[in-house]
């Protein structure tokens, strides 16, 4: 574990330097991550106001807090690796990574955290600004705040492992844009990104329970809103651990198979 420390330090430093070179691109990306939840926020706030201040157990203020929290959690956990891999393989950059005496996932994790670290300087003030603008009120419970930290870390890791593994499909075909799109659309429904899950029909909610998306996004968000009971917290963490382990095993498997294929067909 400690052996990796200097390597992560090196990657982290490099990631920050590279991203400083792309300040404008970084801001444009960031804008995408902000506008989407903001759009849902405005829509649901309007719906709620027209319905007399409440929809499906969510009051107008709850929608505001929900989508601001969703924006933060989504930003903290998102990855761009599924696009990156296609590029890597097409351009032959992956060979360079394979020649290094370290698993390529490490530079990706460091890169991701580097980006998040830099963009925190924008996301932090922006969150406060939005909260002020939409007059959000939020009274967090101390225990949910404490639980939020490990839940967010687990959400980040499970999302990272799954998306990193799905990116490996690029070893079989470099035309994976359609798959990426399908993943995003399915995720949009079952993660609670589009709307709080309790607003969906029962069947969608049950499906969301057994799929991983909810545990990546909606669960940490609902925890912040104080809508999770301690029992649900334990179940949620259990589900996160399960999906993290499954994602890890899947990654090991598909990475090995992918490398074999890459090595068989020409690097």
């Amino acid at each position: 574990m400690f052996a990796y420390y200097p390597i992560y330090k090196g990657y982290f430093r490099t990631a920050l330097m590279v991203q400083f070179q792309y300040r404008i691109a970084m801001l444009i990306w960031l804008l995408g991550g902000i506008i989407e939840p903001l759009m849902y926020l405005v829509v649901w706030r309007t719906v709620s106001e027209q319905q007399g201040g409440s929809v499906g157990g969510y009051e107008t203020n709850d929608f505001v807090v929900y989508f601001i929290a969703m924006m933060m959690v989504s930003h903290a956990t998102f990855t761009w690796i599924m696009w990156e891999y296609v590029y890597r393989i097409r351009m032959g950059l992956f060979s360079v990574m394979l020649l290094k005496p370290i698993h390529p996932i490490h530079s990706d994790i460091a890169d991701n955290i580097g980006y998040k670290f830099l963009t925190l300087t924008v996301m932090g003030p922006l969150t406060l600004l939005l909260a002020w603008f939409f007059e959000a009120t939020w009274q967090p419970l101390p225990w949910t705040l404490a639980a939020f930290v490990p839940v967010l870390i687990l959400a980040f890791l499970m999302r990272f492992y799954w998306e990193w593994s799905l990116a490996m499909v690029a070893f079989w075909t470099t035309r994976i844009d359609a798959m990426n799109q399908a993943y995003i659309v399915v995720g949009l429904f079952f993660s609670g990104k589009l709307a709080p899950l309790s607003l969906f029909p029962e069947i969608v909610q049950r499906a969301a329970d057994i799929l991983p998306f909810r545990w990546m996004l909606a669960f940490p968000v609902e925890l912040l809103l104080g809508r999770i009971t301690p029992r649900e917290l334990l179940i949620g963490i259990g589900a996160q651990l399960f999906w993290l382990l499954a994602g890890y095993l899947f990654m090991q498997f598909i990475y090995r198979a992918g490398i074999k294929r890459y090595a068989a067909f020409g690097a």
Partner: protein
Amino acid sequence: MEQDSVIHIDQLSKVYTVNEREAGLVAAMRSLVKRKTRAVQAVDSISFSVNEGEIVGFLGPNGAGKTTTLKMLSGLLHPTAGSATVLGFRPWERNRDYLRRMTLVMGQRNQLLWDIPVIDTFELNRAVYRIPEPQFRLGVDELTDLLDLEPLLQKPTRNLSLGERMKCEIAAALLHRPSVLFLDEPTIGLDVTMQRRIRQFITDYNMRTGATVLLTSHYMADVEALCKRVIVIHHGKLLYDGELTGLADRFAPFKTVEVELHNGAGGQPLAQYGELMAHSEGRVTLRIPKAETASVTGRLLAELEVSDLTVQDPPIEDVIEHVFSQSPTPLDNSDSQRPPSE
């Protein structure tokens, strides 16, 4: 010999399966249903060994299988058949200890990060390869000196010229002091001065560290300057393994005879002696079938007023060109001419 060999390849083969499709929309639609594939034998049962400290030139025309072989040896490709060990490791298992001790430099592929100064890529390599700080400093200083990198280190890669980038690529690939170097066209696209400098550097590195080098190049000047021994492959098969100087003996069917004449040709048609390559002011260059060299030179001396005569092998470039233009008749490995064991 095998105890000393750092690289040992035995009957190594690689077959690629490639998708095939005819041009046109109908063919495109047909390929949706039924894919046609074709097996391409890139490397065909080649065997050789390279001893510690040797610099070996790995020659062949485009598509001969050189890069495929280097990729198998550096662990990027799985062979279809056969075996190989480098430093006692099986390359495609990509053992980390192996990766720390070898390097692959490909002329057109880069590890330098595009947007940040060169020295920062070096720093990253220090972390990844776990190079101790003092050794790293020493290495950077040495490489900076040998390759004249001083003005380049602080520049982002994207601001470097091709030659400057190649020098930095080589430096980045050698910071961890690998003991085996696979160099694939290390001087491609560089001007003559830069080529010479890189050649000199490879010699120095080899002398100082005793590293083993397997190098491909299309520039015969590289090969002549660096490699006593060459391995030639063509259509994936091993054609020759031996001294560079032996290549002409084996493959060139001609000798070049240069004659200086006192009184010109004296009316004698020179073409009767051999193929006239050049003729100017009493100086004649002839190409003569190897088997006839002795008789033709005898006749030249007897029949003409010769003031000087030299018999030479044709330039190595011509030999290579001749080899590549032939259809391959592979050598049996037992038949190949290897340098004597050390």
